């Protein structure tokens, strides 16, 4: 067990190192010059040099030869600095907002969370409930129509669903505000209601399909037959026996989804003008603010890798059958 965890931990570390290397190559070697991309052609040369120095981009990219060290007078190469900065969770400053990514994150993540967390909880409850009902009534009209409806919902682009809801509930029926945000909890809920509703509906299709397949395996398992044979009622079988075994994929998906509750949804937040972290990324793409994009990629990937590691540990806690080797 301990050896397994240690091996997994080292693997996670090596993957995080790979993510840092990959993002470094993408953002500092493949992308031309973030400062030039930000300022455009009208940028003054002095400004360009100043901002380049501020962002620490005037160092050599890799520590390949000592001559480069000598020329620039700096001890570290760009990769070294970025590597150690990220290990210490120090991200470069956003050029557009002139503040660190962490303080931006601290300001914007709660807003994203206020939209994402209810959407996730409501969505998960609905998905599991529908999946269990459908799996229990296998090969009935209800089953076929739900599966077909799930495929239909998966085939509509998310953006079209957002647009349709925004138009129908916001502009036509005028039940919810079309878009916008306001500080203060009650007002925020007033504005967040429609984004929550929309994101629950937009994510419903694929998740129902996934949980239905998982639930089907459980419904046909031997322990369900045994439970029925000893006279447990249908609702009890579904709500106690099947639901508990369904928890394994649910726990996996929930843990992996946790970081995304804070980073928010890209398209949704731009669409409904929610000043969350996902909207920050779309804004950063428009404004060529590459430190923010880079930090978001790092943060999400590292959080995801850590969460996968946590998932492995949680497997043993939820399911005693799983033996880690």
């Amino acid at each position, binding site marked *: 067990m301990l050896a397994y965890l240690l091996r997994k931990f080292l693997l996670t570390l090596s993957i995080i190192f790979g*993510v840092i*290397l990959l993002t470094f190559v993408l953002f500092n070697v493949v992308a*031309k010059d973030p400062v030039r991309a930000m300022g455009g052609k009208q940028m003054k040369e002095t400004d360009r040099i100043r901002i380049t120095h501020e962002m620490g981009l005037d160092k050599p990219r890799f520590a390949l030869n000592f001559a480069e060290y000598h020329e620039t007078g700096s001890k570290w190469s760009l990769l070294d600095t970025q590597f150690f900065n990220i290990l210490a969770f120090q991200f470069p400053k956003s050029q557009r907002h002139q503040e660190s990514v962490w303080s931006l994150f601290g300001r914007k993540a709660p807003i994203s969370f206020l939209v994402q967390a209810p959407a996730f909880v409501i969505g998960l409850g609905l998905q599991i409930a529908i999946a269990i009902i459908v799996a229990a009534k296998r090969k009935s009209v209800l089953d076929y129509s739900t599966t077909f409806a799930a495929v239909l919902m998966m085939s509509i682009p998310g953006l079209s669903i957002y647009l349709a809801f925004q138009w129908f509930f916001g502009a036509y029926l005028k039940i919810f505000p079309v878009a916008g945000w306001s500080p203060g909890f009650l007002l925020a809920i007033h504005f967040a209601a429609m984004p929550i509703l929309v994101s629950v509906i937009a994510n419903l299709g694929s998740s129902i399909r*996934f949980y239905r397949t998982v639930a089907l395996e459980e419904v046909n398992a031997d322990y369900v037959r045994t439970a029925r044979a000893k006279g447990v009622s249908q609702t009890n079988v579904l709500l106690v026996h099947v639901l508990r075994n369904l928890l394994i994929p649910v726990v996996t998906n929930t843990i992996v989804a946790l970081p995304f509750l804070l980073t928010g949804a890209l*398209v949704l937040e731009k669409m409904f003008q929610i000043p969350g972290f996902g909207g920050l990324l779309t804004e950063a*793409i428009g404004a060529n603010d590459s430190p923010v994009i880079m930090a978001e990629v790092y943060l*999400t990937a590292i959080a995801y890798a850590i969460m996968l590691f946590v998932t492995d540990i949680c497997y043993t806690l939820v399911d005693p059958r799983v033996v880690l080797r």
Partner: protein
Amino acid sequence: MSINPAIPAPDQTSTPLEPIEMPNRITGWRLVVRGRLNKICLAIVGIYFLVGLLSLLPAPSQIGLGNVPGFKSIKSFDQLIDYKYDPDQPYAPPALSYKDSQGIRHYSPAMWFGLDFSGHSVFWQVLYGARTALLITVLTSVLMLSIGTSLGMIAGYFGGWIDDIITWVYSVIGTIPWLLLVIAMTYILSSNESLKEPPTHAPGPVAAFFKNILPTDLLIVIFALGLTDWVSLCRLIRGETLKLRDSDMVAAGRALGLSELRIIFRHILPNVSHLIIITFTLSAVGYLQVEVVLSFLQLGVSSKPSWGHMIDDAKLTLLRGVWWEVTAATGAIFIICMALTLLGDSLRDALDPKLRGRD
């Protein structure tokens, strides 16, 4: 399978191998074609493919992909915001016919789905949008399938440190959420201006091909999608190759002295081809959907006949009552995605039932 008994298989000699159950590809395909729903889906995919191929031809100027005569055109959103009511408005709801400036009635498909805010025919845009969709799905799939298949087979067949490296690479790429990685890749590739310059050294027809059919922004989308999406396929094929490596078939090939490349590409590849077909149908859906998101973030294809671009327009025009453009583009994506999903599902069920539930 007959192996010359004089030559022992190099690795396994003592224990007889368990027979591996191979999906029968021909029966599987027959099962798929027999279903009525599958026939409809195949027909839909075929029609889209045909329309896409036809739309690769240059658009005739008189069909109203440009302006319909008698209708104004607005060039920018600034003009649209300032726009006051005008009897011959640039955008028009769907109609069977239209009257030109002399008052003569024309019956033309150009008006069937209405006109968008710049006075362009939505009908022809939907049809010519099939070009972008076809190029993105087919070229991305070719890129993704070739990377995923070859790396997966190499990792599974050779094992050892080669396997370790390939597994590490795809774990790293798989750790970054796909949509985020695609967006970052597209952003990075399009921020590099030297990639955006048209190829100047290329001879005339090649340059014209890249300018008209495969502009740089489309190529960037294709590369960003294709270079990031091979992870799940690679994982599947590696697992399948690991099993095949120990099969009698490969042992026989080794005994006959076939080169390793020949074993991989002539003997293992056909046996993992069902995975390639299934992945192709199901991933094409993802590409069409991501194209919409990229267009929304202004990172997608910038030239107009593109469904993602048409849906993206609606964020400004839908609240002004222009519902037909977004509806037509959504309908086009919806039908092909539904056909591909249903087809992919039945292909998966027929060719490899083990994969069920791995969406």
